[in-house]
């Protein structure tokens, strides 16, 4: 039986490229858990920002039934080694995605504006001194600056520009990134948000947030703005985390 996600022994690697780790597995497990919704959605353009080893974009292509089902997969990374490794990983699984070596989505923003149906991002979220952000090589996979938010805060406006009218964004975050604040910020731009997976490891507590562009949320946000409500009032009135789901994980075999 064909695997629905990338096989770890077929994932290519390089000393300067981040290997799949707990955060990558969390994102792929979240996508797998949301697979029925994704299939129903029939995305025609799927994009990963920061594809690293290619584990996530390959898994997305596999779980949606490869490219022949009719989607355009595009993956970007700022690290020149990572884009090569991603191509090798895709090839090893018989998948295809278009891979571009660029900073976030630079060069693609104009023509892909309001076009991306599904975006997946496992950003560099680790809190580090600000000067570590933007370094070459593997550091670009994790160095997130103050609160780990420097790169996330650059990606979200780009995601907002690229996502289609019913676009979905799956984002990996850490508790230190202040996911609640991220949700409130995206809500003001008209996105409903839901934590679809939470996982604690020895080192960190990870969340995968699913943001969906949603007209009702946009209208509500506009009304709130019109009433000049503060963020605190918004936060206490209704949590953007509802419905809130937590999966419990043990050893799982997806083959």
């Amino acid at each position, binding site marked *: 039986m064909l695997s629905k996600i990338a096989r770890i022994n077929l994932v290519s690697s390089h000393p300067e490229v981040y290997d799949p780790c707990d955060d990558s597995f969390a994102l792929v497990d979240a996508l797998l858990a949301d697979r029925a919704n994704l299939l129903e959605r029939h995305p*025609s353009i799927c994009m990963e920002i920061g594809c690293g080893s290619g584990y996530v974009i390959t898994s997305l292509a596999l779980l949606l039934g490869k*490219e*022949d*089902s*009719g*989607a*355009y997969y*595009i993956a970007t990374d*700022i690290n*020149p080694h990572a*884009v*090569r490794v991603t*191509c090798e990983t895709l090839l090893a699984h018989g998948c*295809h995605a*278009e*891979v*571009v*070596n*660029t*900073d976030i989505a*630079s*060069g*693609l*923003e*104009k*023509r*892909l504006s309001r*076009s991306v149906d599904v975006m997946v991002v496992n950003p560099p979220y680790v809190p580090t001194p600000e000067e570590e952000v933007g370094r070459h090589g593997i550091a670009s996979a994790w160095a997130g600056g103050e609160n780990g938010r420097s790169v996330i805060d650059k990606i979200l406006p780009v995601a907002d520009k690229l996502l289609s009218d019913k676009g979905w964004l799956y984002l990996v975050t850490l508790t230190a990134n202040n996911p609640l604040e991220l949700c409130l910020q995206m809500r003001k731009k008209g996105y409903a948000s839901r934590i679809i997976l939470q996982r604690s490891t020895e080192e960190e507590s990870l969340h995968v947030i699913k943001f969906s562009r949603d007209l009702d949320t946009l209208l509500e946000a506009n009304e709130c703005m019109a009433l000049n409500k503060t963020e605190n009032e918004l936060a206490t009135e209704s949590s953007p985390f509802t419905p809130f789901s937590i999966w419990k994980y043990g050893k799982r075999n997806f083959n």
Partner: protein
Amino acid sequence: MRLLTHNMLSSNIKGVTNGFPLRIEVEKVVEKEVDLNMDFLRNMFAKIEWKALVEASRTMGYSELPDDAESSMLDSDEFLRKFHHALLELHLEEGALVCPETGRKFPVNKGIPNMLLHEDEV
């Protein structure tokens, strides 16, 4: 890199206002067969800048696309086949994408375009 992706890329250099389409410099073209999916082609047709695709495919040595296209042509199997071939089966393996305004070259190696900018271009 497929011509679909070429159709989605623009020059991202600071100050460039007319960065699309990027001119293609060909060193090596590879053809890879892909199963034809009509729904996908119909979905993508609306997003494609047709003239840029025609020009790009001619640069890559394929001159079967008509100068103009409209959605009614998607009913023709022959048109779909040509559109499919130009959009998905022609890959720029080695070469460059050239900014139409500044002439700056973005290299394409092993099928991967490098859109990274130098510090003074951001």
